[in-house]
């Protein structure tokens, strides 16, 4: 840059700036600025033309005012004029103003682009650089459109100065980042890659940034750069520290360039060419060797530059993950850094080691540093380094050292920072589970965990202990004993009480033999914690008590006493009160046999991915947890919940799978808050216990999974087709049910019109807000069916039901079903589910009575092959004549008696009423009782109708 001559000092600007700096208050500053603006306006207005110097000065002032945060709406023209000046300083200020204050004002943009073009085509390198900087700084789409073609030419032209080449490369990079579609490299690719061979190191450094970015998008096109990069790297690495002159930084040759080269190589797999690969390995070895050499300077810059290259090389080695020798060397090098004085180095070493630990070649090598890492965890002053150490310990853990690592992590937990405690807890829990050889050790570890860091133990952790204890017979007795001992501590965490309550309730009998832990002692121990616990825990304890009654009949009177006390039976909390009342009644009315069945031990849980792992993944998500992952977590929870439910046949509420059973609740594995969700279920509990018959007359109800929360509104539930079939032969019933919501349906049809009443029942005690439903007809259904739905109340109180009326008009025949999408918020979480509305073509049947003779005449008339649809299928249900009759009647056609010569066969006739036309249909169903098969024949005047009817009916019998 040319030196600023003395005359260019712009005293006026300096005075103005110092005036502003001296302003005592904001108001004074605004006054001064207004005054200056008025002055500049009058100057710009002036009839006599301003000279370049004063124009530059005023534009500078405007720029300064703009940067102070005030609006500038004039002076653009003067700035653009400056661009065409021949003086460097004036041009520079002009470009500065343009790049700061440019807006897409069409007329000015054209002028600016013109000026830039002039400068680009000038032979003056400084002007070209200014223009390129301006393009890069603005970096807008318009700029890219105007110059994306020109810049690559400048970049690869033989006669371009080196400094201009550098600017051009970086400018192109910027344009490529903002609008990659406009920067077409095509023909330039190979010449850009060959810039790596440029004499000038600066050009290579700039070009490599561009190439790295480009090759990330299309790696194949830039493949040739690998060998060039390797040779360049090897030349740098092998050069003496004085060879590169300007590019040697504190005795390290071209550190930035080396790092960038290594990073570029990380975009590609290891080179296949043996020679290239050999050369690269040699380079990497040299880098590792150099790290061992004594430092040439004591300056921190020297070591920083050297280490930067080293770490970049190590990450390349990790990226390749194919050279055991190098991996081990890298690991050893990092091991040295673990004890380095410099905190940043220790941090980086730990971080790189974490990735090394996952490589099979270096896992063992990493493990040798365990003592150092543990030491770092204990003594490191910086929390972020400690966090890395914990990560590394987690990564290097395997069966051989799990016990040691878990023990260390547990002991660290007591003093750990609050911010990482929860993560640590999860990690300990996972390691303990993953590498547990003996489950008593596992139980000990987790109980210790709860004792040490109870507040940070999330629900998932203790759910998991219980799942494991229940699934493992061998550990149950030990668990009961340990829990019992742990509970004896005067102050124990609520999570401990939860685990204790659950395990003693299930397996208390295993330790009851010891007089020190006799049933009554166990009960008293649990009950001594009762009053200190929160409501959900208390509820769990009440369930444990009722289980005690089953396990130890001798405690019955004591427990009944407790349940009967006012603090239980008249508790202000509805859940606790209900449990107390119901359990009391259950214990006094039911016989021991019934009790034993109802309160049987929990069955094993199905094995699946640990919920804790899911939780850790969630925590580890990049930055904030993405919605997707959350959703995943939710589904995970749903599945778990399903697992809990599956076990309920032996649990307290044995009868009804459609209502969430208290056993699932006992586990508390539900995604929603357990208390509120359990309330309605408990409502039906009493009925359920004593009457076997549930409400599930519809088979699909029990199969309706709890995880109905699907994100994509367009795809209906997987069951919806099945569900649709349920309603082919009937008009009323329960369309859908899960833990939150029940949808009832009532419909009536006349001719081509139908009316459907949907009843949305809120099964929880919490209100649903922003409840909206939309009915859509996908695809061509839109032209076939006219569906109008009245809006529904946006708010459903807990336990309430709202009704929605849907009017349907059949325009012509159709085969799909309209979709019903329901969205609402329950306790803050958005629920979204899509169902198929059970509107099928047969709903618009008008029955037609006809005699045998008429029937066969019509049957013959419809003899075209496409008019007939036939299906032979196996019976899904018992072949009961009466049931079949009822179903066919429900279909909407007239069932014709005495028509078919074979009395076993069924014959029906009907007309489908649509707005456009009427479609007469005839049906014949021939059951074969021996083979348990049916043959179904449908003939109608329209082929699509026959086909659809046949499809629908085939599922029914």
């Amino acid at each position, binding site marked *: 840059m040319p030196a600023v001559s003395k005359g260019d000092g712009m005293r006026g600007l300096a005075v103005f700036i110092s005036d502003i700096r001296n302003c005592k208050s904001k108001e004074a500053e605004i006054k001064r600025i207004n*005054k200056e603006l008025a002055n500049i*306006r009058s100057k710009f207005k002036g009839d006599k033309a301003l000279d370049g110097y004063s124009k530059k000065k005023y534009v500078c002032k405007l720029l300064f005012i703009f940067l102070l945060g005030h609006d500038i709406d004039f002076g*653009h023209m003067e700035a653009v004029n400056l661009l065409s000046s021949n003086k460097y300083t004036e041009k520079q200020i002009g470009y500065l103003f343009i790049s700061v204050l440019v807006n897409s004002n069409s007329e000015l943009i054209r002028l600016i682009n013109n000026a830039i073009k002039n400068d680009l085509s000038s032979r003056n390198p400084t002007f070209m650089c200014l223009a390129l900087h301006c393009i890069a700084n603005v970096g807008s789409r318009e700029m890219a459109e105007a110059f994306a073609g020109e810049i690559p030419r400048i970049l690869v032209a033989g006669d371009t100065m080196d400094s201009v080449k550098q600017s051009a490369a970086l400018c192109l990079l910027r344009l490529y980042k903002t609008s990659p579609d406009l920067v077409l490299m095509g023909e330039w690719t190979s010449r850009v890659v060959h810039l790596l061979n440029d004499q000038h190191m600066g050009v290579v450094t700039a070009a490599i940034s561009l190439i790295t970015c480009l090759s990330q998008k299309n790696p194949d096109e830039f493949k040739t750069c690998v060998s060039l990069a390797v040779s360049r790297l090897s030349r740098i690495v092998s050069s003496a520290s004085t060879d590169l002159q300007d590019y040697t930084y504190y005795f390290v040759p071209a550190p930035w360039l080396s790092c960038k080269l290594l990073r570029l190589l990380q975009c590609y797999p290891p080179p296949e060419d043996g020679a290239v690969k050999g050369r690269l390995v040699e380079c990497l070895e040299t880098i590792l060797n150099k790290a061992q050499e004594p430092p040439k300077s004591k300056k921190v810059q020297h070591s920083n530059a050297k280490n930067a290259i080293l770490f970049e090389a190590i990450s390349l080695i990790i990226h390749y993950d194919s050279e055991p020798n190098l991996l081990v060397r890298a690991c050893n090098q990092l091991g040295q850094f673990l004890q380095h004085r410099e905190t940043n180095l220790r941090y980086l070493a730990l971080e790189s080691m974490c990735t090394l630990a996952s490589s099979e070649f270096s896992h063992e090598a990493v493990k040798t540093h365990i003592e150092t890492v543990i030491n770092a965890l204990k003594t490191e002053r910086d929390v972020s380094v400690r966090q890395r150490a914990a990560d590394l310990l987690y990564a290097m853990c395997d069966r051989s050292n799990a016990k040691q690592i878990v023990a260390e992590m547990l002991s660290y937990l007591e003093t750990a920072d609050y911010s990482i405690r929860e993560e640590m807890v999860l990690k300990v829990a996972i390691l303990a589970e993953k590498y547990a050889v003996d489950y008593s050790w596992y139980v000990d570890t987790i109980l210790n965990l709860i004792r040490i860091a109870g507040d940070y133990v999330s629900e998932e952790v203790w759910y998991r202990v219980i799942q494991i204890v229940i699934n493992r017979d061998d550990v149950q007795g030990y668990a009961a004993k340990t829990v019992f001992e742990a509970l004896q501590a005067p102050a124990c965490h609520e999570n401990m009480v939860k685990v204790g309550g659950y395990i003693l309730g299930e397996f208390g009998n295993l330790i009851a033999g010891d007089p020190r832990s006799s049933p009554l002692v166990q009960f008293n121990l649990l009950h001594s914690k009762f009053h200190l616990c929160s409501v959900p825990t208390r509820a769990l304890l009440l369930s444990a008590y009722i289980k005690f009654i089953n396990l130890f009949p001798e405690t019955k009177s004591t427990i009944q006493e407790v349940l009967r006390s006012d603090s239980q039976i008249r508790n202000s909390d509805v859940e606790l009160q209900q449990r107390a009342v119901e359990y009391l009644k259950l214990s006094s009315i039911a016989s021991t046999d019934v009790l034993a069945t109802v309160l049987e031990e929990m069955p094993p849980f199905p094995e699946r991915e640990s919920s804790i792992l899911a939780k850790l993944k969630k925590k580890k998500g990049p930055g904030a947890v993405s919605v997707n992952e959350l959703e995943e977590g939710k589904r995970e929870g749903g599945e778990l919940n399903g697992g809990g439910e599956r076990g309920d046949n032996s649990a307290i509420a044995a009868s009804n799978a459609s209502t969430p059973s208290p056993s699932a609740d006992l586990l508390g594995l539900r995604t929603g808050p357990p208390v509120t969700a359990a309330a309605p279920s408990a409502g039906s509990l009493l009925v359920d216990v004593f009457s076997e018959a549930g409400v599930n007359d519809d088979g699909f109800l029990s199969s309706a999974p709890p995880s109905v929360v699907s994100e994509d509104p367009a795809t209906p539930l997987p069951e919806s087709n099945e569900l649709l079939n349920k309603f082919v032969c009937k008009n009323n019933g329960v369309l859908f049910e899960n833990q939150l919501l029940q949808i009832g349906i009532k419909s009536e049809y006349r001719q081509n019109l139908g009316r459907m009443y949907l009843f949305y029942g809120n099964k929880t005690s919490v209100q649903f807000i922003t409840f909206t439903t939309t009915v859509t007809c996908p695809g061509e259904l839109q032209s076939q069916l006219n569906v109008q739905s009245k809006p529904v109340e946006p708010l459903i109180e807990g336990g309430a039901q709202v009704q929605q009326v849907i009017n349907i008009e059949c325009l012509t025949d159709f085969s799909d079903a309209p979709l019903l999408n329901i969205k609402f918020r329950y306790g803050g979480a958005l629920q979204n589910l899509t169902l198929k509305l059970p509107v099928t073509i047969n709903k618009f049947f008008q029955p037609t009575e006809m005699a045998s003779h008429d029937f066969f005449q019509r049957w013959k008339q419809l003899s075209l092959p496409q008019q007939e649809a036939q299906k032979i299928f196996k019976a899904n249900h018992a072949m009961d004549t009466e049931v079949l009759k009822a179903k066919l009647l429900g279909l909407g056609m007239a069932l014709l008696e005495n028509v078919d010569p074979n009395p076993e066969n069924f014959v029906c006739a009907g007309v489908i009423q649509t707005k456009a036309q009427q479609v007469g249909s005839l049906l014949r169903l021939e059951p074969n009782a021996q083979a348990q098969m049916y043959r179904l024949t449908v003939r109608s005047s329209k082929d699509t109708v026959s086909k659809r009817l046949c499809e629908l009916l085939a599922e029914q019998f």
Partner: protein
Amino acid sequence: MIGGLFIYNHKGEVLISRVYRDDIGWALISSTGGRSRRNAVDAFRVNVIHARQQVRSPVTNIARTSFFHVKRSNIWLAAVTKQNVNAAMVFEFLYKMCDVMTAYFGKISEENIKNNFVLIYELLDEILDFGYPQNSETGALKTFITQQGIKSQTKEEQSQITSQVTGQIGWRREGIKYRRNELFLDVLESVNLLMSPQGQVLSAHVSGRVVMKSYLSGMPECKFGMNDKIVIDKQGKGGTTDDSGKSGKQSIAIDDCTFHQCVRLSKFDSERSISFIPPDGEYELMRYRTTKDIILPFRVIPLVREVGRTKLEVKVVIKSNFKPSLLAQKIEVRIPTPLNTSGVQVICMKGKAKYKASENAIVWKIKRMAGMKESQISAEIELLPTNDKKKWARPPISMNFEVPFAPSGLKVRYLKVFEPKLNYSDHDVIKWVRYIGRSGIYETRC
């Protein structure tokens, strides 16, 4: 209740910091992760004093903490609380606090606050207790918070102060004696107006104050009467009927009013008479607001003509609208100019006019002007063409003045003084009454 009180200078540096409750600051810990109280202080500086956009609301909520501020010249007073307090109470307190400080050391400026910080802390201890406002009567405070060194007070004097401060009439001490019993009464009003270009009143109201300065001996009982419509009507009903028409014209309708604590509110409620035992020295007896039958002292007639894109012609006529015998003073008309003004020529008949670039306005000053007169100014404004298509928003023309009457029409009918114990009567008291009407926000759109 108020959790803490901070005084900042214009740079946002804390001059005075007094925390009454620990709850403030805690909310801000989690967001910024530093130390507690410091955060409340910083939050206000960052979000209000140094905010990117100028903060207009006097109440700011940051992290569930409310900051109430008032500004006096370059000084910010901020009351901080976590609770849902009565905002009007907090502001009343802040104003009172300003009054008290002014009474003690004059103008509120950074230097004065720095010089008197011990005194301010002493005052804060006295007038706020655990966030609850206490006695903030200057007269009473001055008896026990003094600026001079501690004068050795006798036990008797001390107990007297205690009984007075805690007693029924906390604002006046006993045994005051003056050779000349004098009473000054000022009716200070500020008239606010927004008028359309066609001369239609869009909104107008007067907010007034009755300020008294009393130098009376003993424990006098005063009674103050004015032409309040309700009182006059009541009397009219009691008296002759033909009188009511006349009095209706002279009486005024007060929309709302507040009184100094010395006024007996029960008496005002039942009889609408204002009776009180006055504090010694200067105090504000009442504040009121009227919206009906306001006498607008000046009328501004603007005329703006845009000649092309680069020129603007402005003509403004002002007319005074009161008795010719009265003289208005300190008249100033402020005509805003567009933001792209590049030159202004002004011609005026009377007074002086000047284009002030720093304020983007033409300021026209007239020293004195009698009633029922008229004066005009015309200006030519040259504009610089801009590439912004934004139109000039045409802010209203504003005006300042001072007139020697009450624009609301308020008249003092009587002010009686009774002192049964000492032997001076109402006639012996020298009374001075003065009316001053000032402009508040007095604007005419153009």
